[in-house]
């Protein structure tokens, strides 16, 4: 049980760390696909199959594609702006960011290691049918709200990303 979890953890944390450290955005997105797949494997390992498939559909499928499209759409054409100033290295900021990450992770991990954890009960069995009944029964209101949120997000994203009607065709602002 633990060896499988350790393997998943190595892939997950390694892919996430590599993705956050690389410069090339396309490579970052591809490494994140690996990390999200490892998370789906974790869900499968923990017995939440529906979540694993939802994770694959939403993250590995949709979010990664949206990220790749955003990278492609915001890529600077090589001949339009010949010499973009390279961003400064910002060693202090990188150090501060990594230090903050390590600090927060250390505090949370220490809390997880030292606080009394509940004893594990029997492995929960959750069929997709029961999940659907719960969603449409006790959590139907939340499901409707989630649908409304997603619709608003769809409209809002289109409005945000569409060019302003008063703009010149090639943005001059």
């Amino acid at each position, binding site marked *: 049980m633990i060896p499988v*979890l350790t393997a998943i*953890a190595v892939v997950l944390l390694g892919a*996430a760390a590599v*993705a*956050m450290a690389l410069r090339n*955005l396309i490579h*970052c997105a591809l490494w*994140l696909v690996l*990390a*999200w797949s490892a*998370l789906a494997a*974790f869900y499968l390992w*923990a*017995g*939440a199959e*529906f*979540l694993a498939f939802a994770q694959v559909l939403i*993250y590995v499928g*949709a*979010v990664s594609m*949206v*990220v790749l499209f*955003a990278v492609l759409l*915001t890529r*600077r054409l090589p001949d339009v702006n010949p010499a*973009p100033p390279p*961003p400064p290295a*910002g060693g202090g*900021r990188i150090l*501060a*960011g*990594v230090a*903050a*990450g*390590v600090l*927060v*992770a*250390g505090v*949370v*991990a220490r809390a*997880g*290691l030292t606080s009394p*954890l509940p004893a*594990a*009960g029997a*492995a*929960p069995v*959750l069929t997709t049918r*029961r*999940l659907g009944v719960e969603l449409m029964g006790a959590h139907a209101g*939340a499901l409707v709200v*989630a649908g409304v*949120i*997603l619709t608003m*997000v769809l409209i*809002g994203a*289109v409005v*945000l*990303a569409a060019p302003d009607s008063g703009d010149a065709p090639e*943005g001059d602002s």
Partner: protein
Amino acid sequence: MSPLTVCLLISSGLFGIGLAGALCRGNAILVLLGIELMLNAANLNFIAFWRFGPSSSSAAGVIFVLFALAVAAAEAAVGLALVLAIYRHQRNVRLAEAVRLKG
């Protein structure tokens, strides 16, 4: 070490990686991806406590993660639309240069 402890360690590590990425990268897309990693760490915690917690007859953990997934997908869509809007106005997506609203 119990599996729940290992899961908590993984989750805190993933959260730390996401936080470090969100704080020290200057690219708006990468900051968004760091936030997504932090949300994933929270989801991992939900599933860990659902699987190894005492009350094994409840589906609350899975349902919570489902709604968190929906909100995370919404956040990614709006965030990347905002990135495109920033790109239209300043021709790059570096957060350090997005100071148009600064007083």
